């Protein structure tokens, strides 16, 4: 759906050249929800704006649905943009127009005749659940409702691609969830490709199929969300995952453990698990078969696209031999182990 080849964007200011994107290549498949995560200033905003040429790339090509978007003339670009919807963090609704007329706006731009256009607006209002708000103005809506209007507006001309520029960053967690659910529904109903940028790992976790981690103008890592979550390869990915994965305060537990030393041999370990093993009673079978006690000090289970993952901090108590055998047993069952103390 989108092929980005060697995309570079340099901003020339009077004092210096700022490299916003450095030789970025990326491939986004039709029908997927693709997330780009990065801190502010990493270049994600520039990247998404290059895809509809709101920012002109300095170098490189961007092929959207077989068409090199960087090689179009003005009129061709206007037409291409009508087939690429975009939603924004600040919603960007026209305050001079009612909700109905805001959704009508892209249809006017595309010169859709009034009758079919009005019918289309009615459909879109129903899709986003705002039929009763048709006649009111944006100032009267909540943030979540405004973003729904933004989504309806972006879908008006039946786009093949939807770009989402931090669309939930100005919303509270509950509203964020409902907007993300709407995006996911639209994605599956219309087979619409969605490219979103965010700094919030929760957004990636909740809706994305694949994710690219962008840092310092480079794409550091690309992969499906689950594999990045289970096996982040770069410090940037790791720190994003840490923002939502509560791993427990290791120091606190290691201190506690020293206080309750009982003379017996003990080890403090972190067990990370992902996928099916989270559902199996491995810990209890370890206790039964290996003559160790397990003291659970901390536990956390989360889901990424319906696959459970999580981590436990365990104190294993026994003899040196039984404890090391127990740890081997856990590893043999596909769990990852980190010895904390």
């Amino acid at each position, binding site marked *: 759906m989108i092929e980005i080849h060697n995309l570079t964007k340099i901003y020339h200011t009077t004092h210096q050249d700022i490299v916003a994107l450095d030789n970025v290549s990326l491939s986004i498949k039709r029908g997927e929800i693709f997330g780009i995560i990065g801190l502010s200033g990493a270049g994600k905003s520039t990247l998404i704006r290059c895809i*509809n040429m*709101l920012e002109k790339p300095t170098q490189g090509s961007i092929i959207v649905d077989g068409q090199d978007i960087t090689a179009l003339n*003005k009129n061709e*670009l*206007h*037409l*291409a*943009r*009508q087939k*690429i*919807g*975009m939603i*924004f963090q*600040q919603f*960007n609704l*026209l*305050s*001079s*127009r009612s909700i109905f007329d805001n959704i009508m*706006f*892209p249809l*006017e*731009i*595309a010169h859709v005749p009034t009758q079919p256009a009005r019918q289309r607006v009615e459909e879109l209002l129903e899709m986003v659940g705002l039929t009763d708000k048709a006649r009111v*103005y*944006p*100032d*009267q809506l909540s943030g979540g409702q405004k973003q729904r209007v933004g989504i309806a*507006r972006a879908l008006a*001309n039946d786009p093949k691609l939807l*770009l989402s520029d931090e669309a939930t960053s100005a919303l509270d967690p509950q509203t964020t969830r409902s907007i993300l659910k709407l995006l996911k529904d639209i994605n599956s109903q219309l087979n619409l490709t969605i490219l979103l940028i965010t700094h919030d790992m929760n957004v990636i976790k909740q809706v994305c199929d694949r994710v690219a981690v962008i840092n310092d103008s480079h794409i550091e890592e690309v992969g499906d969300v689950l594999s990045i979550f289970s096996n982040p390869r770069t410090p940037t990915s790791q720190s994003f995952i840490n923002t939502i994965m509560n791993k427990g305060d290791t120091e606190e537990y290691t201190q506690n453990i020293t206080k309750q030393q009982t003379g017996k041999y003990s080890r403090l370990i972190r067990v990370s698990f992902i996928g099916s093993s989270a559902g199996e009673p491995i810990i209890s079978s370890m206790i039964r078969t290996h003559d160790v006690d397990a003291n659970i000090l901390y536990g956390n289970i989360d889901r990424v696209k319906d696959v459970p993952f999580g981590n436990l901090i365990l104190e294993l108590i026994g003899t040196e031999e039984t404890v090391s055998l127990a740890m081997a047993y856990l590893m043999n069952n596909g769990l990852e182990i980190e010895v904390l103390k």
Partner: protein
Amino acid sequence: MIEYILATTANTFWVENSWIAEKVLMATWETLYMVVISTFLSYVFGLPLGVILVTTSDGHVLESKGFNRVLGAIINAARSIPFIIFLILVIPFTRLVVGTPIGTVASMVPLTLAAIPFVARLVENSLKEIEWGLIEAALSMGANAWQIVSKVLIPEATPSIILGMAITTINLVGYSAMAGIVGGGGLGTLAYYYGYQRYEDLVMWITVIVLIVFVQGVQTLGDKMVANTINKRR
């Protein structure tokens, strides 16, 4: 003067001075249409100029740095000439257009010409207040420059443009009085001929009061219109 007023009864005072009412009414009417038509004409030319100033600026939809700089310089030059000098400077042009430099119709030429660059800057300010995100959203939908001007910039800036019109009208009331001194007609001519040259203080004071009422009226009307557009949206 004071003895004169004391010596006459109220009745005879008004009978003897009824010509004043007639003159003031006539002059007020002249000022009104001079100012209203000049304001209208100055927007016919000044509004597009303001739009061009904004859209050709750096990073905007019709970016054209050189053109923008030249246009800006011309507008600044026109605005730096004091109106009283401008009035004399454009006499040959006025004669060309109207046939005579004297009278209310002739006054509209310098009034309009002086207001155009002022209006262009006011409109520029109004349009610059619009958040870039709105323009970006329209661009992302495939809008061309004309659609952005007609469907985003002007409608979104309407309340601010209306307030600018009130300011322009009020400024032109002041300018029209200056034009009146060199034979432009309206309240300015009245105050100058009768109030200044013939020592008819009463005429001068009535003129002042009419002007105050006029300016208040224009501002109130402008504020009302803005309040109405904004209330509709809330």
